[in-house]
């Protein structure tokens, strides 16, 4: 049944990640030897590598890792292998935030000019900030509505509230699309397909900080998540503080998806498919699942971004389109394999 043990899978994935990273840096519309990276001149090729290719490859790896880990913990929390970060309203809220930023960006820039220049300096656009605030706002709303002082957070209620908030967000989005002009409309829909072409070093550092925070705060949560898979009552009897664990997981997943959405738009399927693939290969134990999902998510998004740059070079496809094209057939293949193995 198990194709590989969790630990072996992690090592294998790390071994695979290195050549993928090199490939993601080396391959592009303009080709040149990697050695120009080590030359200290300010030639065009060194600049392209240092300021465009490397940050972009690293950002795609980091965003992929954060998305995949967020998906894995959400699926554990909801005890549903098909749960996805969009279920708690992050993606929907983020897309409303983006649409607002795109439509009213001009007014907002006038009103909060000073504040904005600071954020633009740190490598974030108004759109990113809008996405993050929208995503975070939606999660806070969903969490509040599904938490009562007596029963704590009800996970089934949260799913339903998430769907409701998602529908509300979709309506808001449609309303804004209806009112938007052609240029705005194009920007909105492009953002919703996800793209990494705004990668820069500031975004890389921000995402890296997010990933490190993730790994630190999730370090001791693997056993708790394993226990939660049995049920909340069962986890409690195994000595797990269920409410505290739920709160931590929700906050982290919302933060992770919010940050990565702010940096790279909505990238579908990574959070859903990657943890699922890892489970099909090495089982659902979170002690290896979280790490393996992170590395596999990084590899998958690097590959997807590489393809998005190459397929219609020198133009680019939105990376979200590629993740779906790449991920879905592989996912279906793995699914079929396990069905026949049973």
């Amino acid at each position, binding site marked *: *049944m198990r194709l590989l043990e969790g630990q072996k899978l992690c090592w294998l994935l790390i071994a695979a990640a290195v050549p993928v990273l090199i490939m993601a840096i080396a391959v592009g519309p303009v080709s040149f030897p990697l050695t120009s990276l080590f030359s200290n001149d300010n030639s065009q090729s060194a600049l392209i590598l240092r300021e465009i290719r490397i940050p972009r490859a690293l950002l795609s790896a980091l965003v992929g890792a954060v998305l995949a880990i967020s998906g894995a913990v959400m699926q554990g929390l909801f005890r549903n292998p098909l749960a996805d970060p969009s279920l708690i309203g992050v993606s929907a809220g983020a897309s409303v935030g983006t649409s607002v930023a795109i439509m009213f960006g001009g007014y907002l820039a006038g009103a909060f000019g000073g504040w904005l220049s600071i954020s633009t300096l740190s490598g974030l656009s108004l759109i990113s900030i809008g996405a993050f605030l929208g995503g975070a706002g939606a999660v806070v709303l969903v969490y509040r509505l599904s938490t009562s002082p007596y029963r704590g957070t009800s996970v089934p209620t949260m799913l339903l509230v998430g769907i409701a908030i998602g529908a509300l967000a979709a309506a808001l989005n449609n309303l804004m699309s209806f009112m938007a002009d052609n240029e705005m409309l194009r920007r909105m829909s492009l953002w919703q397909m996800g793209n990494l072409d705004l990668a820069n070093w500031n975004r890389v550092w921000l995402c890296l900080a997010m990933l490190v925070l993730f790994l630190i705060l999730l370090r001791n949560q693997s056993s708790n998540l394993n226990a939660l898979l*049995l049920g909340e009552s069962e986890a409690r*009897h*195994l000595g797990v*503080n269920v409410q505290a664990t739920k709160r931590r997981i929700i906050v982290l997943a919302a933060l992770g998806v919010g940050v990565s959405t702010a940096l790279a738009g909505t990238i579908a399927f990574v959070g859903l498919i990657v943890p699922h693939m890892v489970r099909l290969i090495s089982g659902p134990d979170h002690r290896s699942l979280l790490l393996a999902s992170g590395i596999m998510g990084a590899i998958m998004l690097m590959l997807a971004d590489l393809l998005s740059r190459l397929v219609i070079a020198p133009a680019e496809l939105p990376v979200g389109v590629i993740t779906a094209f790449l991920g879905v057939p592989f996912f279906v293949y793995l699914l079929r394999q396990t069905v026949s193995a*049973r």
Partner: protein
Amino acid sequence: MHAKSHPVLQIDSVGVDIEGVTLLDQVSMSVEAGEVIALVGPNGAGKSTLVRAISGEQQLSRGKIAFNNAPMADWPLEALAVHMAFMPQQSVLDFPFTAREVVALGRIPHSTGQLIDSQVVEQVLAYLDVGYLADRVYPSLSGGERQRVQLARVLAQIWTPVEHPRLLVLDEPTSNFDLAHQLLVVKLLREIAFQGISVLVVMHDLNLAMICADRIAMLCCGQLQAIGRPESVLTSSNIRQSFGVDAEFIQDSVTGQKHLAFTATDRVKT
């Protein structure tokens, strides 16, 4: 055997109201070290509410419950988890853990190290006759097999001796078992109790309860109707009052063993 200076579990005038409906009222009983108590009663009698109250999952409206001489609320979750294991009626698990991994989850509250944990898991798997299922994926097992794996999991949780006497609370553990495994579990519960672990088990089958338990507690309409040795609790009048069923003892002429035989009365008690 453990000293019987104080009961492992002391339930004192416990009452539970939910939304104005009284589910439990004035229930008092104790569980001694190394004894098996079967909790019986008709549907809606409050059996599950009582075990949920014992496990700390259900807040009490009145009364108090003490475990190893300390109020339940004073027990930290982690310390409680190594002393008391609880098996609910049903556990839904859709993730492809193997049976062995599910049993190993029972070792989460322990810090005994991987070696001891895996030894315990193997012992429990063999003990409950689920060793041959160890590498199968849990969602692919049948209802009875899943229940045996879950029982193995809660056993693994309290398998190793700890500071205080241990308690195993089981809510209808045998509901999906075939006959052979029902009897196996009865035998195992007796063995577990012999090692000093107290067992509180909700059962529907009165005949099974009779051969399994040291004492039987009969609940009806949220109140404790009778508690004591099986033959003193499972009387025709008690059973008629609680279950609305006529019952009589039939003695096997060869083994001398007693069985209950039932006839439905005209009305089912509500």
